[in-house]
């Protein structure tokens, strides 16, 4: 047991250690924590309204336990989902497992160590929803002390079953389907699924902006469909046991259900460790793979082609981004996230009829105002441009090759700026499609907007790359470190929005300026100036930093 605990501690230390993090990053974490306080206030007040409304609506008919049923059933789904991504990353994608395998640990010990990080994720997730909702329910139902003790115990054991189910499913899948062979592809797939989940979640949140109204609707629905809910709850034993334990906290039945819940959770842990002994190692040991492809002179000749150095560098960058799961998720998917999210929302709005308002809003504003609004909005969307502020850091340990190969520093850096611009182009094309089809912008406004956007995109790429060149992070062992806890994106956004927010506000307030042409020309001139200044700054950084970066 002692050894197991030490192993867990070591594995967690490796994941969450603050050593090697600069004091700037530590301050960042503190700031983040401070920012989270008002945010959690908002969440709690939102949950409070929901629980209160549901309770007052359901209590008269004696259906208030549906709130608990709904909570536990919902948590099961969320926990299953969170388990999936964190089990995959901890069990199969974290590179540390190969380092531990040669040591004399029993598989169950390694499993316990590996399960620690996912469990922390699960408790954080259920802490956000379960703790406030159970507390609020207790307050509204006037529950006694025993209720809170039960709630605490249930909070501790509830994640076990979803985790066990997902872990066994995944271990089985990894063992036999051997998707581990396509480690990279699986990573991308799991990541994409998370984004779909986030978008879906946001849509639901958006559709339910008024908690009282929604909760009332839900209460009615629950009152009508209570039979159905009970069937569903009854089908998932942990949900049923937990609900019953809390509902009957004051009598013996509650204790019986609590003991049942504790028993099946303990059983879950044993099941997880036993199944893991049999399944985990077989799956994880198959991770290193060889190739069975054949290669011949004909194929080689096809792959060999001479191209200009700049193009070769550009292709190298794009290949690296598209082939590295972390880069793909953080750069491609993330930059498309905004536009895709926008399209989904616009489509929803247009189908609900409130969309017509948007088109008429643009007409109402007048061309100058529309252009300024569109411009600042696009800048906001393109300003967070991970491809640019990871330009230099992405190279990691390959960076010295830029120094000993005979490639001019300008080519290296500007191939990276170009890469970021091309990736932004994907988002711009999406936005253009939205502008032309869904919003049906007037042609002149559209042309002015797209031209300005393309210029603005070059500006953001220059700023991001310059910031990264100024202080790159090259000594990473995991690609995540290029993006994690670096505040460079925030600085980039501040510079961009700060500069152009000021100009847009200025143009907005010049009443004599009304024509679309004049506004576009003025904005283009300002952009040209900003681009020229950033070019000079980047060139200066290339001279002073390029050789000294390591």
């Amino acid at each position, binding site marked *: 047991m002692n050894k197991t605990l030490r192993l867990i501690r070591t594995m967690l230390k490796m994941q969450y250690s603050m050593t090697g993090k600069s004091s700037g990053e530590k301050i960042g974490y503190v700031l983040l924590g401070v920012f989270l306080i008002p945010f959690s206030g908002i969440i709690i007040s939102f949950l409070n309204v929901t629980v209160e409304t549901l309770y007052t609506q359901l209590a008269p008919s004696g259906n208030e336990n549906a709130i608990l049923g709904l909570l536990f059933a919902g948590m099961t789904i969320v926990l299953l989902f969170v388990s999936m991504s964190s089990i995959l990353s901890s069990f199969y994608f974290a590179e540390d497992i190969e380092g531990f395998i040669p040591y004399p640990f029993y598989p169950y010990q390694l499993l316990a160590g590996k399960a620690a990080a996912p469990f922390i994720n699960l408790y954080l997730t259920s802490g956000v929803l379960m703790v406030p909702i159970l507390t609020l329910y207790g307050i509204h139902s006037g529950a006694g002390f025993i209720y809170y003790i039960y709630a605490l115990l249930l909070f501790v054991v509830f994640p076990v079953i979803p985790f066990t189910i997902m872990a066994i499913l995944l271990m089985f899948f990894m063992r036999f389907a051997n998707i581990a062979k396509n480690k990279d592809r699986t990573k991308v797939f799991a990541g994409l699924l998370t984004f779909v989940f986030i978008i879906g979640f946001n849509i639901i949140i958006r559709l339910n902006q008024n908690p009282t109204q929604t909760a009332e609707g839900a209460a009615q629905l629950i009152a009508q469909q209570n039979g159905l809910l009970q069937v569903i709850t009854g089908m998932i034993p942990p949900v049923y046991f937990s609900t019953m334990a809390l509902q009957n906290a004051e009598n013996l039945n509650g204790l019986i259900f609590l003991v049942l819940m504790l028993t099946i959770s303990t059983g879950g842990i044993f099941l997880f460790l036993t199944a893991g002994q049999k399944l985990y190692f077989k799956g994880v040991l198959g991770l290193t793979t060889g190739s069975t492809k054949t290669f011949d*002179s004909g194929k080689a000749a096809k792959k060999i082609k001479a191209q200009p150095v700049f193009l070769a560098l550009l292709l190298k960058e794009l290949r690296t981004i598209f082939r590295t799961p972390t880069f793909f998720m953080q750069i491609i998917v993330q930059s498309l996230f905004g536009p895709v999210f926008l399209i989904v929302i616009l489509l929803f709005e247009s189908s609900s009829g409130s969309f017509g308002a948007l088109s008429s809003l643009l007409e109402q504003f007048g061309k100058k105002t529309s252009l300024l609004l569109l411009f600042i909005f696009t800048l906001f969307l393109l300003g967070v441009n991970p491809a640019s502020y990871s330009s230099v850091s992405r190279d990691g340990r390959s960076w010295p090759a830029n120094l000993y190969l005979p490639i001019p520093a300008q080519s290296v850096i500007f191939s990276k700026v170009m890469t970021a611009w091309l990736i932004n182009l994907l988002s711009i094309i999406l936005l253009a499609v939205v502008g032309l089809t869904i919003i049906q912008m007037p042609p002149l406004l559209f042309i002015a907007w797209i031209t300005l956007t393309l210029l603005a995109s070059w500006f953001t790429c220059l700023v991001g790359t310059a910031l990264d060149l100024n202080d790159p992070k090259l000594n990473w062992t995991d690609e995540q470190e290029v993006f994690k806890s670096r505040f460079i994106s925030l600085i980039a956004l501040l510079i961009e929005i700060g500069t152009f927010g000021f100009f847009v506000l200025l143009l907005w307030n010049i009443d004599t300026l009304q024509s679309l042409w004049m506004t576009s020309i003025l904005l283009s001139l300002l952009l040209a100036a900003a681009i020229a200044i950033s070019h000079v700054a980047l060139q200066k950084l290339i001279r002073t930093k390029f050789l000294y970066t390591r």
Partner: protein
Amino acid sequence: MITINNVTKEYAGKTAVKNLDLVVPDGKIFGFLGPNGAGKSTTIKMITGILPIDEGTITVNGHDIASHPMKAKKTFGYVPDSPDIFLRLKGIEYLNFIGDIFEIPKNIREEKIEHLTKSFGIFEALDDHIQTYSHGMRQKVVVSGVLLHDPDVWILDEPLSGLDPKSSFTLKEMMREHAAKGNTVFFSTHVLEVVEQLCDEVAIINKGRLQFRGEMKEMKEKFEADETLEKVFLELTNHE
């Protein structure tokens, strides 16, 4: 030819290389020896332009690496101590990338890539990502990249580590041939057997200072003839 002229390099107040003077002549295999942390890698990184030079000058084939980096870099090929670079590219893409940078015509590229990678036994794996390669295979791809553009000067940092005996033999033969044609081969190593087999001349560096430079024969003669190279080395680096 590589000329290192009174070069000094400091890291955070610590002197890594001090007043180093060294000429690596053409037509010779030149071994660069020293214990861990002696300044070998620092010196090689300064020669190749990876590290800026604090004091002194370095020229490669007459081109100053600091003032004319492009000209100098076109004349040498460098195998770094860690071949873990461009891992997300396929072997063939890496070699093609090197071909583009050194502007090697397509037909020569095809012929040489096939010949080199077949002699190192990695041809079949060229369509796989370098990430999936073993240490030795990565080393071979990088070495193939250097040989692809056929530079006059070879600079190799621990080139034989991780290579299997056959590839090691092949590379040593290639080094001999290259030097025999009147070119420069400069490499660092810890492995004294390799030095004994391969080198025409050696330099020994310790704590950033040159301890010895001369022909293998001289070095042995300088000490008692029956001593092993190991003893000589230990004497030069440990007993000051």
